């Protein structure tokens, strides 16, 4: 098991959906996950849910991390989950961060988002969460 994990790094797609330009958190997390031994692809700005899922498919990602600070999370997250299901990729873990009120976060978690990490979350908590909860293969 340990050896297998060494062979294949956890692959993460960090995505910025919609027109939101706040990418400090996304870029920072991309770097920190890479330093924690994961393979990280940052999509850049202005991604549609379709583009995000397509990138995850192309990259054979284990995790999609979506950063949303413009209040569009209740549209984007469910749409990404829906597309993943359509493509039979619902074992890909979806996590999120940004300005997401707690009741929305709870609703998103009910829909199947694995975790929402709000402002002030230490990045090592996100690293640990991914390592602990990502699918094994």
């Amino acid at each position: 098991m340990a050896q297998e994990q060494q062979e294949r790094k956890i692959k993460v797609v960090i995505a910025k959906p919609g027109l939101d330009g706040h990418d400090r958190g996304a870029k920072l997390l991309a770097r920190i996950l890479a330093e924690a031994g994961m393979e990280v692809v940052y999509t850049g700005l202005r991604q549609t849910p379709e583009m995000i899922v397509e990138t995850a498919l192309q990259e054979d990602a284990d995790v999609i991390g979506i950063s949303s600070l413009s209040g569009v999370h209740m549209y984007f997250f469910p749409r990404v989950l829906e597309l993943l299901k359509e493509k039979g990729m619902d074992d890909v873990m979806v996590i999120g961060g940004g300005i997401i009120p707690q009741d929305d976060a709870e609703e998103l978690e009910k829909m199947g988002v694995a975790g929402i990490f709000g402002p002030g979350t230490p990045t090592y908590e996100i690293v640990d969460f991914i390592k602990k909860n990502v699918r094994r293969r």
Partner: protein
Amino acid sequence: MFDKSKLDSIAQQKAEWEEKVLNPALKKFPERKKVFTTISGTSVERVYTPLDVADFDYEKNLGFPGAYPFTRGVQPTMYRGRFWTMRQYAGFGSAKETNTRFRYLLEQGQTGLSVAFDLPTQSGYDSDHPLAVGEVGKVGVAIDSIEDMKVLFDKIPLDKVTTSMTINAPATVLLAMYLAIAEEQGVPFDKVGGTVQNDILKEYTVRGQYIFPPQPSMRLTVDLIEYCFKHVPRWNTISISGYHIREAGATAAQEMAFTIADGIAYVQACIDRGLDVDTFAPRLSFFFNAFTNVLEEVAKFRAGRRCWARIMKERFGAKNPRSMMMRYHVQTGGVTLTAQQPLNNIVRVALQAFAAALGGCQSLHTNSYDEALCLPTEQAVTVALRTQQIIAEESGATDTIDPLAGSYYVEAMTNKIEEEIEEYIRKIDEMGGTLAAIEEGFIQKEIQESAYRFQKEIESGERAYVGVNKYVMDEPPPTNLLKVDMEVGRREAEKVRRLRAERDQKRVDEALARLREVSQSDENVMPAVIEAVKAKATIGEICDVWREVFGEYKPESFV
């Protein structure tokens, strides 16, 4: 400021003090940390003395308020004449909802308006565009056409208030709408006052609301500047913004340095157009952040003013003192607000606003304590505005000008930040200017490096952040959050479709054809944009003409 023998004597006294007073005390009571730094990572000495400002030349480095090099402020009386303009950035949902918020703020004693547009408007898309789904009316008000703009300023006299609009790539379009409405209200262009952000360069580095590639974008920027100094003389044609640079992670000195670098690029672009520096430079304005480390912020503002004055005089040969003045708006630091124990943010904002006042800002937005959670509620906005009013009316900081001048620490820090700015400007010049530095990713990488360092300091506990890594509490989830529903998007999309069906399409087509022609030539686009908005062309249609003529910017991400 001090003669040599005096300095020698101080140095000697300091050495004695260290030996006889300080060192024994340190042995008994070691200091809290080995090294003290500001939030920007700049080291801070134990105590500052005349030795730290030994080369200080009062006349050369400070002078007097309203006079070169403007270190002490841009006006001769500053807040003894009148307070800064209290200007809260606001906008959400439809034009009608935002108009209600504007009128509320004016009733509460706010003295200027500041419009937040939603992201589709900022990116030049109509509310029914596929990329606008979910975004309409979210982080600002949705404006598709002049009809929305009319509702936004309903019962607000445009000769009595000044309006700041946070709009960049499509700045010409929103300004055109504003001017067309002023005309309808019977207000002549020379009585209209306000600001458009119109600062495209920082969109490429930190803010992300670009549409077109840099060259044609710079052309639109200069077109607006040129049109305004000829026809709208009270308009601030650009607000060169460090705010977002700081939000993205820059240090205080980097914020000022990269903003000034952007400023240099705009001034050069106007000069390259053949404009005389003293015609347009008096209407350039700036926009900065204020973090919680009050003294560092004050030093930053003072260093920035001095640097800009020197650059305008020495590098660009400006003769009019107004061309050399760095006039600026300040917004308190959005990124410093915490979702944890949100009421603590009121205190942070108060300190930041105090720094802005001590630093000599011309206008100020104070953030609301709930902004790490949602768009501000009315209660939170009111507290934020009252914070400014308390500082202005009660603190006493407004009664004398540049009250921290002469503090050994503040002057030493001002000098240090100025040196850092100059060093960055030198580097950027060597790279071939600001655009080249952006294309290479230099500015982006410097900012990201600072953001990373800061995050590490917080996570290691090296830097305390109350409620986040120190004095943490279990809290119930916050209530009373403002939410904009998805319904706004459907309503706005329907409204713009109805507008297209009902307007005089022939007039729109002609206006857009004319705009295309002008855009392909060297002519200033502003008159054609004004005609197009009057014909009820939408922002999306106007930007689509430019997308075809200019192309679209394809970003490269520097991670």
